[in-house]
């Protein structure tokens, strides 16, 4: 999936558990796992906003574009 979500790095930096993040963002741990594994097809801005608030970061810290061929275009 070209759009990659890197939550693990921020989770580690903020020393937060997956369950705690899911609770703060307001989504189920299952959905958060779907997000982490790159299986999500669409994300609400509301969810992205909640993620940035909970992890105290920018969307760019979480989202990365990886073209099919490999790294940056």
């Amino acid at each position, binding site marked *: 999936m070209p759009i990659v979500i890197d939550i693990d790095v921020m989770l580690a930096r903020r020393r937060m558990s997956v369950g705690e993040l899911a609770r703060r963002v307001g989504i189920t741990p299952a*959905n958060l796992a779907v997000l982490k594994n790159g299986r999500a097809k669409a994300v*609400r801005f509301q*969810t992205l906003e909640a993620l940035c608030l909970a992890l105290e970061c920018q969307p760019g810290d979480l989202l990365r574009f990886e073209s099919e061929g490999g790294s940056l275009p």
Partner: protein
Amino acid sequence: MTKLASVSVLVLVVLLGGVTVVVQAGVLPAVAADAAHSWPEVAHLRAPVLAAAMAVVACIQLALVCTARLVLLTSADRIFTRRALRWVDALTGSFALAAAIGVGIGVTLDAERALNPGVAILLGGQILGCLAVALLVIVLRSLLVRATTLNDELAEVI
């Protein structure tokens, strides 16, 4: 669908169900007996035509059951499923079958020259009415399929 709406529909379904039972148990046999008495030359048609008419009412009863099931599925928020669609198909089928039986009755009566204008109009009305409802349900079915697709897409948004 509001609670009031679903309860109203279910009450109506039960009432109409009661009416169909009365029609099957009392009205139809009485009309059949009367017809056999008034037109003895077609008295041999009494049993088959009565059976066919009972079958038509049974189709309506099936339609009522399908309607009730769909209302219950809606209030349980399980309407956007494969199973719900099957009940819609059963609903269409029951009306289509009722229309087909009506045509069968008409053809039989016509063959025996037992089709007087009154009966013809009644039968025509029944056939057209059932066909119209079947077509309406087909149109609404495609709407349900679209709504289900949209709902599935929305469910994937995290």
